[in-house]
């Protein structure tokens, strides 16, 4: 990595100077050596790092405030967030009333579930994604098939494998709960006349062509060797899904009204989820110490973690993809993650995600966006044409903030521990290399101590645990 042409270098050198000179007995606001350590002897500087590492560190902390999403006018509305919190934890938004967002994103487990592959109404094919610092993300899901947090929040609700619910059902769930209804109407205005069940069926949605109900029907048809009736005859050429039939029976203006409620639910869920932030990690205190010349804060990164950081930005080249304050480039790469039982073979990843993104009715440039012409849409304006730009097996680079709390790892949960992840990148022994795998990923000359240092650094990215009083299941 070259030195960027900025003033960082001179300032950083001054920072190190400040830290070191303070440690050597210079005057300054920083605490001096511990009482049991003579001044000028072993200085209380836990982790003075190279100039390059200082420059990198200054670019990686603190986590800036989450940018407001202009496509969601209630993105930072406290009332919308409070409504979103109720909805996030509500099992009413599911087919059988037994699945909520918190089923996979458990607050007490750092908003993940600890499973290799998630489990909604039915088993899913990928690992539950962490929810830290979502306001900074550019794409959502491992394959980036949503381009905003609010549109992402809608997908699981109507996914036959996750909540298996419908947008009409969502509208009724809010309408039929006095507290939810009051809160909804305070933020978004009056609900449509959902009491009229003839106009507004309890269950209805437009079923997209790529709906996983079709995929499930195919799987049932193939697996139907037990003589049981799986109604697979209902799915097939020329047949309309029952949800679609109910949807088609509605007047266009009523469809519009229900979809509007559904979109509002996504925006309230986004307003809540953006509050789930990971910051205040030892690494952040370390960088704060560098900025302030505070030796005590610099000592927040122990020697092993400091060596790990040097490796992270240097020999191990982790920073290539895991750069910036979130430790992710927010984009997609094929790192050759091995396949695991239960996960699909040759998961197409981003290439399929792009197709789904284009097919979505809820994009940032759609009529449901609150800023469809705005700059937030630049990211979708120049996406590669279908079939170009992305090979199979590309998945979103996950943030490493609080990564210690979100095992197992990778899009398919292939690795149980951070040690396994580091060994995977260090040795490449289990890598599933294809023509599109990142060429930069080659076996590294890392000792066991080096790998342990990298893990120590990853552990130093752990922020405070979620504030369950603010983010956990609400009491009503």
């Amino acid at each position, binding site marked *: 990595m070259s030195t960027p042409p900025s003033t960082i270098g001179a300032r950083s050198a001054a920072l190190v100077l*400040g830290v070191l000179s303070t440690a050597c007995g210079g005057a300054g606001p920083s605490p001096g050596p511990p009482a049991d350590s003579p001044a000028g002897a072993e200085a209380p500087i836990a982790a003075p790092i190279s100039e390059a590492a200082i420059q990198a560190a200054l670019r990686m902390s603190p986590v800036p405030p989450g940018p407001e999403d202009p496509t969601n006018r209630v993105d930072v509305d406290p009332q919308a967030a409070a409504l979103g919190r109720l909805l996030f934890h509500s099992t009413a938004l599911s087919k059988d009333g037994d699945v909520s967002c918190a089923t996979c994103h458990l607050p007490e487990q750092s908003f993940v579930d600890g499973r290799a592959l998630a489990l909604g109404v039915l088993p899913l094919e990928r690992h539950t994604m962490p929810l830290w610092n979502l306001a900074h993300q550019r794409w959502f899901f491992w394959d980036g098939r949503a381009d905003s947090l609010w549109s992402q929040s809608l997908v699981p609700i109507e996914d036959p494998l996750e909540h298996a619910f419908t947008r009409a059902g969502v509208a009724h769930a809010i309408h039929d709960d006095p507290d939810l209804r009051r809160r909804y109407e305070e933020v978004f205005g009056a609900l449509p006349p959902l009491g009229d069940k003839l106009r507004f069926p309890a269950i209805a949605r437009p079923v997209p062509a790529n709906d996983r109900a079709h995929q499930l029907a195919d799987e049932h048809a193939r697996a139907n060797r037990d003589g049981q009736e799986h109604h697979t005859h209902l799915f097939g050429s020329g047949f309309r899904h029952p949800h679609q039939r109910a949807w088609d029976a509605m007047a266009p203006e009523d469809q519009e009204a229900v979809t509007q409620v559904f979109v509002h639910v996504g925006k309230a869920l986004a307003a809540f989820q953006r509050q789930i932030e990971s910051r205040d990690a030892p690494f952040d205190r370390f960088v704060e110490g560098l900025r302030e010349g505070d030796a005590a804060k610099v000592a927040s990164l122990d020697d092993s973690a400091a060596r790990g950081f040097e490796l992270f930005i240097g020999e191990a080249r982790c920073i290539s993809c895991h750069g910036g304050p979130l430790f992710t480039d927010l984009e997609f790469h094929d790192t050759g993650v091995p396949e695991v039982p239960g996960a699909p073979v040759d998961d197409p990843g981003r290439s399929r995600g792009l197709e789904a993104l284009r097919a979505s009715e809820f994009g940032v440039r759609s009529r449901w966006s609150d800023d469809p012409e705005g700059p937030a849409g630049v990211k979708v304006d120049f996406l590669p044409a279908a079939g170009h730009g992305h090979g199979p097996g590309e998945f979103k680079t996950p943030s490493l903030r609080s990564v210690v709390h979100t095992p197992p790892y990778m899009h398919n949960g292939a690795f149980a521990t951070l040690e396994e992840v580091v060994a995977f990148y260090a040795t490449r022994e289990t890598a599933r290399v294809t023509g599109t795998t990142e060429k930069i990923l080659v076996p590294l000359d890392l000792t066991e101590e080096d790998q342990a240092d990298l893990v120590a650094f990853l552990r130093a990215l752990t922020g405070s645990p979620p504030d369950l009083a603010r983010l956990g299941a609400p009491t009503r």
Partner: protein
Amino acid sequence: MGFVSSAIRRHPTLSLPFLAVLLLGCTGGETPSETPSQAAGVAVGPVEARPDRHALKVAEPRELRTRDGLLVISWSPVGGEVPVNEHFEADVTVRRAGASTADAPSNPLLEDAEVSMTCFMPAHGHGMLREPRTEHIGDGVYRVRGLLLHMGGEWSISISASIDGLASTADDAITL
């Protein structure tokens, strides 16, 4: 100071700057570029609260000769810098190569070219995850929109200009 010696072992080229900094720090030495407070060893801060933005400044247009030597292509990022992992735009001009004279220091800018710009990371084996589009915005300036260099590292840049159906390509490289 165990870590310092460890760091120096791992990065021998760092040893001189480290030692210099250490020496200055422990003796209160001054360097001409430092403020008095820094020279006295007082910690600097607080400084900017946000992480420093990472961008390559490109103050002057980068002038390139095409591989066939027929064209001179210049490009510069709008705003004067190429940011890491942020969308940006670039302006490109094209002129025929030729000997300059005092009366005609360079040939005129061409306004009827078809221009495209692609970026690739040789070490990684991939390019951008966007497909930029180019528009002639007038006076021989072609604006390339939708550029996104999503990673730090070396990027090779190819700018092609088609004139009368004949394409010429110029190459550049930058390191972010």
